[in-house]
């Protein structure tokens, strides 16, 4: 009980909330550690990472070999999941996921997608304009949104449209702005080699150097000018902070908080870290600690279940399960990314989440070997044992009552198998039940 005591109102429940939203859950050890250290220290660690007590697990091996993300099917996903599970800077991985959704790119060669992923991670918390510039000339993006080979003779509007609609503004531009920006964005080209690889470059000869009118300004704009016009537009900061807020907080953004976040974002020179820091410090993030109000996305659900249980990546089933749950990393459904929120939870994806617990029950940490459970456990100690094995997750009072009921009923049958089966059933419900889907 002492470890749950408030550190000036900062409890283990607060730590778990912050860690789930800013990362992939807190282990019981992390929850105790950061509840003692307090809110400020916790948020500083989340923003900057560091050696403190992240789970210690070995680098994954499948069939005795290291992951081969570029060549083996599904290993790209496992490679990233492993980073989420073992990271000493979970927020960096969480924001990399955010940017992968924001700048959603799909259907490109795996080496290009992995290179883009590194770019997103490198800039994840820093200046948005730098990130935007890197993404715009990123080969996977150049190919995906047809900016490569968009030339002055026939400018392609694909990137210009998504740049304004999805990447920077959301609103406040016209069809004409898109067409004019498309002209300014011309000049990138892609050259395919005989081995099937591609090299992208910028070629002034392909660029339309004429005057354009974009977002109310006139000039001989090139691609960097257009990016600057977009991030300098009054609609950009409210758009960006609103999207970040929605990613981290499950309740609407109050207008006073929006104004504050916009100020923080602009004064910092359009940096991400200060905005996310302000969001993590905002009381709105810590509402409803007894009834979490955000649905875990499949990636967060899977990475979080593994991380909090201290279970490393040791099989490739996680890849197809993520696909079946509706969030297949490196393959978002479209340039708009995934639809977040309650829509993750169709009846089918819920069934796959249920099935995920069966695979967890086959791992070293959460699994139960035949005959491994003492037969003398009381229902209460059986539930406590199951909770520890899966990282002591948050549960509602209703779930607590159901777990006790299952334990009592199953343990009442004094057959040889009932102690093990009771453990498996409890752990399964803790991993797969409705409470485990929210954070």
């Amino acid at each position, binding site marked *: 009980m002492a470890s749950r005591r408030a550190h000036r109102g900062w409890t283990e429940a607060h730590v778990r909330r912050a860690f789930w939203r800013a990362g992939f859950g807190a282990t019981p050890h992390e929850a105790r550690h950061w509840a003692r250290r307090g809110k400020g220290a916790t948020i500083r660690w989340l923003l900057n990472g560091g050696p403190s007590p992240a789970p210690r697990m070995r680098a994954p091996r499948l069939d005795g070999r290291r992951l081969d993300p570029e060549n083996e099917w599904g290993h790209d996903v496992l490679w990233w999941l492993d980073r989420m599970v073992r990271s000493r800077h979970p927020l960096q991985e969480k924001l990399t996921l955010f940017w992968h959704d924001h700048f959603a790119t799909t259907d490109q060669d795996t080496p290009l997608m992995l290179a883009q992923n590194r770019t997103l991670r490198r800039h994840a918390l820093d200046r948005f304009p730098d990130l935007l510039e890197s993404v715009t000339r990123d080969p996977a993006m150049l190919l995906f949104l047809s900016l490569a080979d968009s030339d002055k003779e026939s400018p392609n509007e694909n990137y210009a449209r998504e740049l304004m609609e999805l990447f920077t503004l959301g609103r406040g531009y016209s069809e004409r702005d898109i067409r004019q920006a498309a002209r300014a964005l011309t000049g990138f080209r892609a050259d395919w080699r005989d081995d099937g690889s591609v090299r992208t470059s910028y070629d002034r000869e392909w660029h339309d150097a004429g005057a354009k009118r974009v977002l109310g300004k006139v000039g001989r704009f090139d691609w960097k000018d257009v990016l600057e016009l977009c991030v300098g537009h009054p609609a950009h900061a409210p758009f960006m902070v609103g999207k970040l807020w929605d990613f981290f907080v499950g309740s609407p953004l109050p207008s006073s908080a929006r104004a504050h976040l916009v100020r923080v974002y602009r004064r910092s020179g359009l940096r991400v870290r200060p905005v996310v820091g302000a969001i993590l410090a905002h009381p709105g993030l810590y509402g409803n600690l007894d009834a979490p109000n955000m649905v875990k996305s499949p990636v967060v659900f899977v990475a979080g279940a593994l991380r909090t249980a201290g279970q490393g990546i040791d099989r490739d089933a996680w890849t197809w399960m993520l696909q079946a749950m509706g969030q297949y990393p490196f393959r978002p459904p479209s340039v708009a990314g995934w639809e977040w929120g309650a829509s993750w939870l169709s009846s089918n994806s819920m069934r796959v989440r249920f099935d995920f617990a069966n695979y967890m029950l086959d791992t070293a940490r959460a699994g139960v070997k035949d005959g491994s459970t003492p037969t003398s456990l009381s229902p209460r100690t059986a539930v406590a044992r199951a909770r520890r094995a899966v990282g002591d997750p948050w549960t509602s009072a209703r779930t607590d009552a159901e777990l006790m009921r299952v334990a009592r009923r199953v343990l009442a049958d004094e057959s040889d198998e009932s102690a093990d089966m009771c453990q498996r*059933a409890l752990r399964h419900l803790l991993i797969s039940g409705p409470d485990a889907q929210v954070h």
Partner: protein
Amino acid sequence: MNAHRACDDFHRSSERLRRDYLGGPPLTRRQVLGLGVGGGVALYLSQAMPVQRVLEAAAADAAAAPNGPVLVSVFLPGGVDLLDTLVPLHDYGRYADLRPGLKVEGVPLAGTSIGLHPSLARGVGGGVKGLYERGKIGFLPGIDYSNPDLSHFHSRHFWETGLITDSSAPGWLGRWLDRAGSRDNPLQGVSMGYGLSPVMRSGRAPVAAVASPGDAGFWIRGVWGDAYDEAMAAYARLGRVRGGGHALSASREAARLAKLVADRLTPYGVDPLASSVAYPEDSDFGQRLRYLAAMISKPLGIRVADVEADADFDTHDNQAELTTLLGEVSECLAAFQADLEARGLSNRVLTFVWSEFGRRPEENNSGTDHGAGGLAWVQGDRARPGVHSDYPDLNRLDREDNLQVTIDFRRVYSSLLEQHLGTDAGSVIPRAGSFGRLALVQ
């Protein structure tokens, strides 16, 4: 001028939308009965009833309308090009000027001035072309809405909801279920896939997403007998807990629905759904259509369903891929129709094929950008055959150099609701009366 009209359209409808279409008070029994479709049996069910009674009610629902009409929505994502799909042979010279690099030799369609993309003849019985020739397709060239929004996401949202609004809203088929469907049978509205399509999202009516019906069942590793039953009973009870905020409610509801779907589908075994018709190999789209045809053949009470093609019709720089994309669509849809016929279901299933917009008449160097005036079609024994809207005039483009829209998609929705599903369109589509009707069903 046009832009202002669009805004008016939005604002005028938005107040009524909030009141009537975005979740007003639940209907009273009399109002639902007044719509005259479906929900009669379900009206007496409360949401917290035992699973077994729900299943009995759903089976009764199916039994009450064994030949009830089924509407299937097939979405071709990305914006399908009209000009290269239904080639305007009546103005081929102008077409060739607009599409010097891309132009397609359309296969003439008897009795029309349209030439079909050659890929649309692929598949059993001559594919889409064969279906047309047998009187089972009605084409709708130039379909869209006035002042089209060329964003994939906005336009798709409008089509999915049947509303020109940027607010979130239930899908038009989900809204139909809210008005006319059952309160207890989630399989009345099925999204074929991993997630629920926005088309099928409802306000109150239970609906389901089904990726692979053979896999719908539950199991727990290393747990069986009474212990398994205890665990599943606990899971089911947790699914019925009320309250706790929207995320937790959604999670509990998902658990409840997943359990219901499993209970409904598991009795049919691992692959109960074999078809006598060959679908294209390696096509997930075909696979979903195959599952759907099989599920419609079972007494599950399916009323509306949606399927999304895997294709990406957003052909900015790769219009040549239309050959592959349309070929797969043609093969899959022809197999679906043949399957429905072989199962004796084709007289009650109507399929509506659509995309979020068309593409610009003038090509860029290797593809086409977003445009207005796309295409859609109705397909099935009950589809009124022919070409039911004017082909946009290639010599009279709008001020953005896009095709003029010749038919509003909400006119088509209203017509399908009334002529196929037998529901007053005004209860689902705002201001349905203003769009008029078109005979689409025979």
